[in-house]
């Protein structure tokens, strides 16, 4: 088979698997698991094969036109460069891991068939986004991902949190998608084509008339999808979905789509210095803000969600300084360790029966209950904190190096101000990241108090996946010297200055956190254990769904995050009250407008409608009075009518004759 055929099969197989899964889910439950895992696995293998054949240098560009679409043609086209090939491999591998993990995680879930089919559909849409060479086809995948995310976040729709979170995720990303769509149209109007190659050609020849406008409109969509400030608020709430969904969608793939899209069209953004500056500021605010918020969260998944936002901020920062190689490199390594973190967190939540860090810090022996999750999570957290030689160190260094080069004027793709912004924010975030990663680890695995509940051994499907993902989290960074051939060719290897600075700051953050934790732990007495779910036989999914209802303790004196943040803790725990701002700025006006419309509809429009109905009814009532059932009355009325008619006819005839 040619490479093009293989590449077409990559998004197609999960799609067919999802369609088959949806059709056969009820009638043939035995096929659901193979239908979920095998197409995704095959797609991953094919993606590896495509990447292998593509080899990083030879761009595969094939297009076919289904039907003429007027002035701007829309083609079904593939455009596979090194970025696309590697990201597709990542998506395939992570999706396969998540599908395998889900077979264990949701093994007793009654809605597993539709869940697995939606995950497959999601994978297919993401692969379409990755491989598509046409912006309109890319948009199709982009939107399918949005709706799949809505369904999957709302998987536990019995809980009001999940329902609200799924709606919020959908609406907030749509808020970005509308400007995104307009931006795509503007871009296609300027470039005269939806083809990515055509657009890049136009940009290279300086044919773009409104680069700033287009770049800012596209940035809105990217911010929505990749959860960048100010449209990031949906991501922490989206943790109401099952943990594998969080791993796949809200850490590894969907949120990476925005970064990937920007990387693909980076010349369009680079054509406007203003857009690059906006992107840099956005990335800086996102990085620092989310790291502070992560330090204050109590829900383990929310910590990871805010950390995802922060890491996406790193990628956006790399793009803002014009180094898409570094951005996609960080995307790849982040996807590996963040998927691992989420999947391990799922195992931890299952074992602890709660998702509250405070509750976990009051039970001991959690590490012994889930040794696989303990070790792999340690690896992933080290990678997250960018400790050498884990993957996160190399990719984060690549970002910082790019920012440093831009700041010092050695690269001129982006303004130097953007470089400084990203560099300072990135270094500050490195400190905070190490702090919250260590806090998460200490609170989860170094708790004191009663023994953790026994939920039995984790299924092999769940634990094996963790080790599979631990390999890239550990070693992917060592490939930094090789993968730059697949990207733009900029060196991705760390330099001494940033490496010392970044690692030093991370070590400082970790040391301070550890010291504070030791002090607080020594001072605070062993607190009473908090409520947690304890069903020894239940599958992890149902434990998590039940744990969603558990209350989070408002105050915990032993929390190092509280001591570290000081007065900032309250706002940070609440996401800096951004939700309240949105509530005041958007939700309240919309609700007020809705109640006005409701009033107009109920009280004004309906009055006319009701009056029409009532008048007909009243007339009917009058006419019904005449229906006495007495034939003779009817006949009398008939006679009277005839007489009147006759008289009228005669009178009229006379009048006519007289005239």
């Amino acid at each position, binding site marked *: 088979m040619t490479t093009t055929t293989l590449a077409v099969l990559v998004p197609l197989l999960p799609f067919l698997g999802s369609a088959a899964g949806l059709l056969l889910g009820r009638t043939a439950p035995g096929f659901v698991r193979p239908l979920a895992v095998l197409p995704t696995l095959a797609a991953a293998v094919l993606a590896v094969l495509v990447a292998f054949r593509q080899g990083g240098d030879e761009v595969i560009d094939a297009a076919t036109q289904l039907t003429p679409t007027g002035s701007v043609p829309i083609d079904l086209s593939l455009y596979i460069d090194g970025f696309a090939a590697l990201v597709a491999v990542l998506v395939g591998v992570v999706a396969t891991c998540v599908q395998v993990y889900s077979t264990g995680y949701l093994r007793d879930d009654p809605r597993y068939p539709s869940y697995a089919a939606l995950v497959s559909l999601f994978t297919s849409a993401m692969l379409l986004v990755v491989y598509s060479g046409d912006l309109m086809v890319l948009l199709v995948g982009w939107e399918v991902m949005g709706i799949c995310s809505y369904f999957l976040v709302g998987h536990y729709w019995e809980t009001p949190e999940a329902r609200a979170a799924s709606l919020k995720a959908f609406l907030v990303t749509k808020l970005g998608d509308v400007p995104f769509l307009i931006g795509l149209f503007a871009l296609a109007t300027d470039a005269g084509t939806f083809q990515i190659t055509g657009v890049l050609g136009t940009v290279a020849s300086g044919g773009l008339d409104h680069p700033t406008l287009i770049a800012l409109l596209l940035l809105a969509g990217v911010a929505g999808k990749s959860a960048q400030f100010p449209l990031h608020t949906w991501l922490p709430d989206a943790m109401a979905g099952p943990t594998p969904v969080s791993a796949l969608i809200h850490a590894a793939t969907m949120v990476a789509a925005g970064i990937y899209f920007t990387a693909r069209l980076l010349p369009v953004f680079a054509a406007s210095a203003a857009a690059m500056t906006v992107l840099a500021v956005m990335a800086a605010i996102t990085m620092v803000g989310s790291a502070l918020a992560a330090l204050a969260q109590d829900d383990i998944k929310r910590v990871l969600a805010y950390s995802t936002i922060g890491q996406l901020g790193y990628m956006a920062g790399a793009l803002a300084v014009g180094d898409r190689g570094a951005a996609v490199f960080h995307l790849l390594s982040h996807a590996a360790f963040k998927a691992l973190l989420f999947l391990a967190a799922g195992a931890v939540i299952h074992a602890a029966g709660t998702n509250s860090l405070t509750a976990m810090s009051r039970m001991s022996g959690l590490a012994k209950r889930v040794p696989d999750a303990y070790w792999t999570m340690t690896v992933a957290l080290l990678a997250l904190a960018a400790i050498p030689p884990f993957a996160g160190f190399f990719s984060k260094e690549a970002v910082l190096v790019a920012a440093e080069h831009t700041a010092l004027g050695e690269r001129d793709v982006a303004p130097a101000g953007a470089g400084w912004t990203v560099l300072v924010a990135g270094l500050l975030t490195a400190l905070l990241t190490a702090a919250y990663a260590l806090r998460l680890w200490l609170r989860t695995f170094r708790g004191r108090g009663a023994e953790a509940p026994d939920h039995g051994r984790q299924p092999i499907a769940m634990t094996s996946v963790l080790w599979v993902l631990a390999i890239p989290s550990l070693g992917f960074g060592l490939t930094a010297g090789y993968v730059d051939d697949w990207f733009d060719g900029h060196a991705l290897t760390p330099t001494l200055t940033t490496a010392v600075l970044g690692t030093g700051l991370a070590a400082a953050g970790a040391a301070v956190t550890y010291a504070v934790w030791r002090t607080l732990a020594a001072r605070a007495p062993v607190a009473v254990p908090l409520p947690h779910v304890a069903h020894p036989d239940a599958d992890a999914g149902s434990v998590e769904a039940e744990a969603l209802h558990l209350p989070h303790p408002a105050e915990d004196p032993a929390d190092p995050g509280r001591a570290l943040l000081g007065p900032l803790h309250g706002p940070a725990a609440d996401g800096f009250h951004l939700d309240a701002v949105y509530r005041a700025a958007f939700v309240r006006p919309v609700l007020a407008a809705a109640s006005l419309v409701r009033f107009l509809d109920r009280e004004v429009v309906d009055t006319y409608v009701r009056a029409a109905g009532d008048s007909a009814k009243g007339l009917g009532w009058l006419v*019904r009075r005449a229906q006495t*059932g*007495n034939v*003779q009355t009817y006949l009398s009325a008939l006679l009277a009518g005839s007489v009147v008619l006759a008289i009228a006819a005669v009178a009229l005839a006379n009048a006519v004759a007289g005239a």
Partner: protein
Amino acid sequence: MHLAYPAVLAALLFCVGLYGVLARRNAILVLMSVELMLNAVNLNLVAFDVWLRDTLHAGQALTLFTIAIAAAEIGIGLAIVLMVHRNQGTSDVDRLRDTAEGPDTPEAPDASDERREPTDEKTEAAA
């Protein structure tokens, strides 16, 4: 003979019949009144046939038809009255209000009210 006599007679007959149809309570008497009205028409037909000196005597021929149809009609009418009397226990036109509108429930006519007191009806009909 002047046309006025049969015409006036026919008019009187018709009015008597009309009064009977509109005012009598007994269904059989109503039917008989209908016959009176028919016969008033027949009288008119014959009288005008003679007065117009119609060579085809269309009026007389039509009268024969009317008589035949009236006979059939009265047969069917009497049969209906008989059945109504058997079913309802009365042939009083004023009491036969099955098609009346109920006060507020159009689906349930108040005919059932009438059926609840057949003894009253019989006494009234007898009276």
